[in-house]
């Protein structure tokens, strides 16, 4: 009898232990702050996008350009955003957010970047042969950009024992393609203090 009880108790314990290892997935609010490792994450990307959007739309460069150009919105091409850190940082997330904000607000017109336009050009070239005359997109009607958005992400790390400081600086620059003048410079800084516990549960 005692042996049987012990067997059931052991089986129940084994089941309980294995249940702890079952994968659990929950959908959470994309706006929530979820810092796990201390590395670059979605919150950082969102913070950067928000700051760059606010700074860019609040600046006067677009209005000044419109005042000198028939009230038209300036045209921007998204250039390269370099990740100069040792970490993998998906810079495309906040760059896309910025691009979306430009289009939504109507502040500027955004043209396809060098990586995007080749496919479009291929399709247009294909239409010249295969599409009917009235529906084919005409050649040499692309809109040239007047400004290029470039930027980079840099990081500084400092650590001692179980403590670590990670500092990210994100710089975005809008350059006049004709004169090379920097008409707007946006910047956001993030500093994280990471403290690791001695014992993990």
């Amino acid at each position, binding site marked *: 009898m005692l042996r049987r009880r012990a067997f059931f108790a052991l089986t129940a314990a084994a089941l309980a232990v294995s249940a702890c290892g079952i994968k659990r997935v929950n959908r959470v*609010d*994309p*706006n*929530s*702050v*979820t*810092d796990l490792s201390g590395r670059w994450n979605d*919150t950082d990307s*969102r*913070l950067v*996008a*928000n700051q760059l*959007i*606010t700074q860019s*739309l609040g600046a006067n*460069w677009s*209005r*000044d*350009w*419109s*005042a*000198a*150009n*028939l*009230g038209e*919105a300036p045209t921007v091409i998204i250039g390269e955003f370099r990740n100069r850190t040792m970490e993998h940082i998906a810079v495309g997330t906040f760059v896309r*957010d910025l691009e*979306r*904000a*430009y289009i*939504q*607000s*109507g*502040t500027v017109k955004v043209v396809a970047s060098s990586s995007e336009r080749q496919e479009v050009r291929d399709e247009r070239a294909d239409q010249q042969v295969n599409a009917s005359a009235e529906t084919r997109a005409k050649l040499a009607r692309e809109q040239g950009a007047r400004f290029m958005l470039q930027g980079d992400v840099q990081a500084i790390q400092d650590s*001692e*024992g*179980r*403590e670590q*400081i990670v500092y990210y600086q994100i710089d975005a620059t809008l350059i*006049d393609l004709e*004169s090379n*003048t920097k*008409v707007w410079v946006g910047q956001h800084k993030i500093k994280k*203090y990471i*403290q690791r516990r*001695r014992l993990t549960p």
Partner: protein
Amino acid sequence: MNPTIYLRASALLALAACAPYPQRVNETPIMVNGDRVQATDASAAAPLVASERDAMRATIDSLYALAIAGASNAVREAVARGEVTIGMNENQVYAATRSTPDAWAVRRASGSSVMVPAHTSAAPKDKLGEMVMVQLEGGAAAVLSRRGPQGILVASRPQDATAAAQGKAAAEALIREGDDLVASNDLAGALNRYDRASVLDPEAAEVQYKAARLLDLQLRPQEALMRYQRFLLSLDIERIKAQGEANAKMAEAIAMAQQRILVLEKQVR
């Protein structure tokens, strides 16, 4: 010796080692897990931007109406072409450059006024180039300055403000630049400037002669020969002869070119 002292000391050391690591950073977190960071919605700014743009376009439309009212046909055509010309008034300058008064800084003093771009990064332009300054005398544009690839181009007569005259001025600037390069022994650079100048101003005979001399010095006889011939062809020789002494320098160049042609033709054969 009591061994318990060692035991107590090691216990104390072990406790100290287990104690929390001394924190050197005592900053209050500005954001913790569970907080919310809302993504910025830029569409809220759209109505404001749209109304700003509409206001600008309305201003430009009013300026067009004011610019055209009572204007001569030549001015109307220039406004339609988007070209600032001598004699235009302030509103016509706005209309010709498709800009609003916000794009300009205007300083007025006893009948004269000066219009300069309000922002260097967004300078108004007309068909011929970026405007640097418009000087008005008695309400009419008297001197126009535009930014060109070779510096500021100034026009103070109606014939100077045309595209052809601006090309001529740019060619002159290129010839000057070429002469400076010859002086600093950059012969290839100088030849490049002379070539560009000859395209901008095909009637400039002097530039053909300078290019021919350079090629001759570089021991490129065939090209030099062609340039000398082009120089002579581009000259109205009869006119030069009639001007006599006044064009002694040019006459000397003609004689030199003719002489070199004879020599080079023999060499090339």
